[in-house]
């Protein structure tokens, strides 16, 4: 693998972090924008969860990961600690794959 990937990804990722925080930051945001920004975790985390569960590359797939998601959702619903949720989901997926 090329070191250029490490260099460009690090510079690019930092540029995004600094852009919002240092360059634009410090100003009071209008209400509609503030309300919208608060919804970022809900929208993006859902998208990340669905992407990581139902796709490989650009293909939609349905495999053992669905069980992991189900176990994680149940565990989060039961208000289990985060690490318990992670371990249960990984273990459930591993067991089904081993069968």
């Amino acid at each position, binding site marked *: *693998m090329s070191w250029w990937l490490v260099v460009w*990804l690090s510079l*690019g990722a930092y540029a995004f*972090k600094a852009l919002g925080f240092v360059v634009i930051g410090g100003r009071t*945001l209008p209400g509609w924008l503030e*309300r919208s920004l608060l*919804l970022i975790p809900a929208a993006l985390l859902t998208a990340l969860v669905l992407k990581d569960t139902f796709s490989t590359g650009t293909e939609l797939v349905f495999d053992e990961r669905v069980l992991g998601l189900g176990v994680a959702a149940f565990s989060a619903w039961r208000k289990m600690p*985060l690490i318990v949720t992670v371990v249960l989901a990984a273990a459930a997926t591993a067991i089904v794959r081993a069968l």
Partner: protein
Amino acid sequence: MPQTKCLRALAPDVRRVVTASLTLSGAVGVFALSFGVLAVSAGASIAQTCALSLLTFTGASQLSAMAVIGSGGTVGAALGGSLLLAARNGVYGLALAPYFGDSLGKRLVTAQFIIDETTAMHMAETDPRLRKIAFWTTAIALYSCWNLGTLLGALAGSAIDPQQFGLDVAFTAAFVAMLYPHLVRRRARLAAAIGGAICLIAIPFSPVGLPVLLSGVAIFVGVPASGDES
């Protein structure tokens, strides 16, 4: 345990925040293991894998880059998807900026630690002092755990098959746990539903990394002033 005694000396609210930060960081350390393993098996050297965690320090982007490289993609393709994923940290920075009134130098350092987890921990609190404590304890503990886990995972390298241990669902499970508290608000549930639908529809038609960014359009259900804000 000395750590427990130390935590007990703090005010209850601070103790709760610090405990949550340490728990989250410990869990993140576990996924860092899987990132280390996945990166080395995708073709990165141990030094490159550690450099990514030390310098890039945004998990989803790092994983996405390794997934593309591992499946034979070019540096350009890997960068495209990863940087799209990294763009959300810019929006987090925008949301966090009003709460940090430090000097330019301090802000430039703080910026490196603006990621999903630090933002979520910061926003979960209402008291300004607790928000800063939540941000910084998470930043320091998570940076340490993420890099230590990455190193150990990279060293373990090809000896482990991540899929066999279900490590590939570790990120998903953590995201679910972090997502759940947001869904008590009706608008957040709507944003989640729309964002998720956009992402799934976009997956077959767009490059890796883009669907997640497109789902960000769903946040604009927050534009109307009416509705629940609880």
